[in-house]
């Protein structure tokens, strides 16, 4: 059976403007980069990456942008949601020095990966790119784990002023980086991919998902690559052959939407 398992919210914590983390009991094993389908009965079921892995307790971190995320935002400890998964492939965490580049809520799913890298004695640098200071989160968490954290804001309200990809480019010039792991706006990831000629590259993609088990075709990119099963993490070699990467996604009806 692959149906939602009902679980109770343990904690709901505000991380930044419109951004919250909720944690819940969910004993299944999960790797960083994998995701859940999160069911708010009578509302929707949406994909959400794991942002906390703490034994039997798991967490997700999200921005309130529509119906489902607003419903999630309102939930209090004790409220019930349905979780299924984990789905997808997760990151391969290998190398001597990994550069993590997170844009917006993308940093949420990079955090457990960075923590794992540090634990495996891999030098880890994390670029957190946000629009402005009020949207910044996970800075403390990542510093605490031992990663080197660089903040970039579009408006320069804190840290580097500019895009996360620009901040990343500077690091790539200065430091010897083996691998870039990224999640965030697709244009940003596409820009990064273009800089990673000889550096191992992995990006986590977001596409509209329905079945999450690889049959409905809703989430497909390129030549039938299913983001829900073959992804959400794809390596640079694969993405170079995916024409739609950074170009368009498809909405719930399957209509193409340019980025």
């Amino acid at each position, binding site marked *: 059976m692959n*149906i939602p398992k009902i679980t109770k919210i343990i904690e709901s914590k505000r991380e930044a403007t419109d951004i919250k983390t909720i944690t819940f009991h969910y004993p299944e094993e999960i790797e960083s980069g994998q995701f859940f389908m999160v069911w708010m009965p009578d509302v929707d079921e949406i994909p959400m990456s794991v942002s906390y892995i703490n034994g039997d307790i798991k967490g997700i971190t999200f921005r309130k942008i529509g119906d489902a995320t607003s419903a999630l935002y309102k939930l209090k400890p004790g409220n019930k949601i349905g979780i299924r998964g984990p789905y997808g492939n997760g990151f391969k965490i290998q190398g001597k020095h990994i550069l993590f580049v997170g844009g917006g809520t993308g940093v949420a799913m990079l955090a457990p990966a960075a923590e794992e890298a540090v634990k495996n004695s891999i030098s880890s640098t994390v670029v957190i790119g946000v629009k402005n200071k009020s949207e910044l989160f996970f800075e403390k968490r990542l510093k605490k784990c031992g990663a080197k954290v660089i903040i970039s804001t579009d408006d320069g309200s804190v840290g580097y002023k500019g895009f996360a990809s620009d901040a990343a480019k500077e690091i790539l010039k200065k430091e010897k980086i083996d691998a870039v792991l990224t999640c965030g706006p697709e244009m940003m990831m596409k820009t990064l991919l273009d800089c990673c000629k000889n550096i191992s590259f992995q990006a986590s993609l977001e596409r509209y998902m329905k079945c999450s*088990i690889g049959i409905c075709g809703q989430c497909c990119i390129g030549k039938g690559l299913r983001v829900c099963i073959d992804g959400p993490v794809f390596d640079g070699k694969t993405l170079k052959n995916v024409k739609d990467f950074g170009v368009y996604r498809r909405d719930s009806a399957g209509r193409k939407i340019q980025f």
Partner: protein
Amino acid sequence: MYLTFGVTLVDITTKIAGIRLKNPTMLASGIMDEDAGSMQRIIECDAGAIVTKSIGLNAREGYPNPTVIELNHGILNAMGLPNPGIEQYCQEIRQLKNSKTPVIGSIYGANTREFIELGKRMEDHGVSALELNLSCPHAKSYGLEVGCDPKLVQEITSSVKEKVGIPIFVKLSPNVTNIIEIAIAAEEGNADAIVAINTVKGMKIDLELGKPILSNKIGGYSGKAIKPIGIRCVYEIAKNVDIPIVGVGGVTTGEDALEYIMAGASAVQIGSGVYYRGIDIFKKVCVEIEQLMKAYGYKKLTEIIGVAHT
């Protein structure tokens, strides 16, 4: 021609309404067929033919999630016929124009006029045949509501047939009192083939919340559990019509495919099987069919069609 997926030399080619398939495994409608890329991948996985998602005149978002869940013995879905509309979708079909593998355009409509319009557009963009979806169990005023009335089935079929030059397959629902009557209506409407079955109406309730899980509450049941129902429908239809039949419902192995063919199917479609055995299921099933044919002493797949009736 002798295909050789495995080691044995048996002929697993087949034909439906004049369309030659290199093997009898087709991709079922609604599975990995929202865009050209996905269908291209399935073609490269050696499916004998591809059926597109069911396409309507206008874009439809479908139902909110949850839309697909896996139960103990099958899969339950209520997608709600999401599709980008014929205009956008034709771009996808055009990309497959040079494919050697036949592409069959599935269409749904609320009335004869819509079916004709859709059929003509599909033909213009190069599909090899049309599959009229008269059987979707969970989209209001489409599909099943049309497909359970023999008169409407005959009318829609014959009207589309008059206006297009490509073969017409009619896909039927098992959720009717008498599927034979509907199949006969399709034949009398000059359908070139029958496709059976679409999903069986079902429901799953979450025990802790006491709520149906699918947002549409009722869904369509597919996969392993429904095979005996599909076999029965194909057998009943084969006893009563002369046009070829495509068997669908719970095909996951060569044995399943062979059972449908013995019941009277000229080919099979595979949907949920993509979940059970992965995207390379088409090749796997072909190899298994060849092995079984060798074990049971068959040389040509076509000689097996309908043997259960003799």
